[in-house]
């Protein structure tokens, strides 16, 4: 009696689990799978064996099948998203481990979520933009631009939080310029080269015009930081220029 009630409950859960299969697979095999599970439940019940262990094993085994079938039927976007999601998770391990080891590194859970989202968005941006062109210089240009953009955005976020100086928000104009430029250029190499050069020039201008208000020893470090970002944006621009010239040949 007890096994019957449990069996009915497990069969209902199993039918719900089968909904996670891709539609085409479910339409073809869903009924047969539910029937087979029913038969297996009855076999266990008739033998007087408990259903919990069997149901747990079958649910896990079916779940593996669901993941496999969904992966096989995923399109490029789905596969890319999954790959980037796992890579972002791998990268997240760095701050996660560091927060356990490095003294004073005490991020709140929200901080990890933000970093994960940033990793994911940057990774997806790379995957979607880099496939626009086969040239290595284009892919490298996208990579350098995104890494530099990510680092600039991140360091500025930390700097604004530490200094509580809203004037530093002006650095985000460089990133906005990059996004607008990339959209206007429709991700064409030539337009992206111009955009990256414009970003480097804007950053240089900001570094010269906007007073940092930092003490002299900090100002030197900031100048080095600015220089590094300008070099990265320029390098990315040169890579896009190379890709655009290669396209013309």
């Amino acid at each position, binding site marked *: 009696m007890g096994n019957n009630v449990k069996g009915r409950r497990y069969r209902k859960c199993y039918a719900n689990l089968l909904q996670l299969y891709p539609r085409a*697979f479910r339409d*073809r*095999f869903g*009924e*047969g*799978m539910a*029937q*087979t*599970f*029913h*038969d*297996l439940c009855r076999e266990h019940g008739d033998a007087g064996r408990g259903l919990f262990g069997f149901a747990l*094993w*079958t649910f896990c*085994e*079916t*779940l*593996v*099948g*669901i993941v*496999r*079938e969904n992966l096989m039927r995923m399109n490029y976007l789905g596969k890319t998203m999954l790959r980037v999601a796992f890579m972002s998770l791998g990268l997240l391990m760095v701050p996660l481990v560091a927060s356990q080891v490095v003294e004073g590194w005490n991020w709140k859970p929200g901080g990890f979520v933000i970093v994960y989202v940033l990793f994911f968005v940057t990774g997806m941006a790379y995957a979607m933009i880099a496939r626009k062109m086969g040239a290595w210089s284009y892919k490298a240009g996208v990579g350098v631009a995104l890494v530099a953009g990510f680092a600039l955005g991140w360091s500025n976020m930390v700097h604004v939080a530490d200094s509580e100086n809203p004037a530093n928000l002006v650095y985000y104009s460089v990133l906005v310029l990059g996004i607008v430029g990339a959209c206007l250029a429709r991700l064409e190499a030539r337009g992206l080269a111009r955009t990256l050069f414009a970003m480097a020039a804007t950053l240089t201008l900001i570094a010269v015009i906007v007073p940092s208000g930092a003490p002299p020893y900090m100002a030197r470090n900031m100048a080095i930081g600015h220089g590094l970002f300008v070099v990265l944006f320029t390098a990315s621009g040169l890579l896009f220029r190379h890709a655009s010239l290669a396209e013309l040949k």
Partner: protein
Amino acid sequence: MAKKNTVQAPLTPAVLHILLALSTGERHGYGIMKQVEADSQGKVKMGPGTLYGSMSRMMEAGLIRESAKRVDPEMDDERRIYYQLTGAGRAALKAELIRYRGVVAVAEGRLAHGQ
């Protein structure tokens, strides 16, 4: 349209067991599971996820096909979907057994030399 399996690549253990189970006649999902268990003397226990996942690929490869839905006289009065081997499935099973024989012959030869 189903892809036909023209390349005689080694079969996965699950596919081989399903082909073996269906080699003696049509079976439904639960029947295949029980036959696999019996053929392997209880060593292979296939869950529904593995069974139907493998069968999906086997149907795409043209190794098996669905048969008529009917009641199993040895079980309850529920109608079940039966599966059966195709000609390609039977040929794949034969080819796999020949491959196995070859592997066994090589292995036995090596072991005999090693003694």
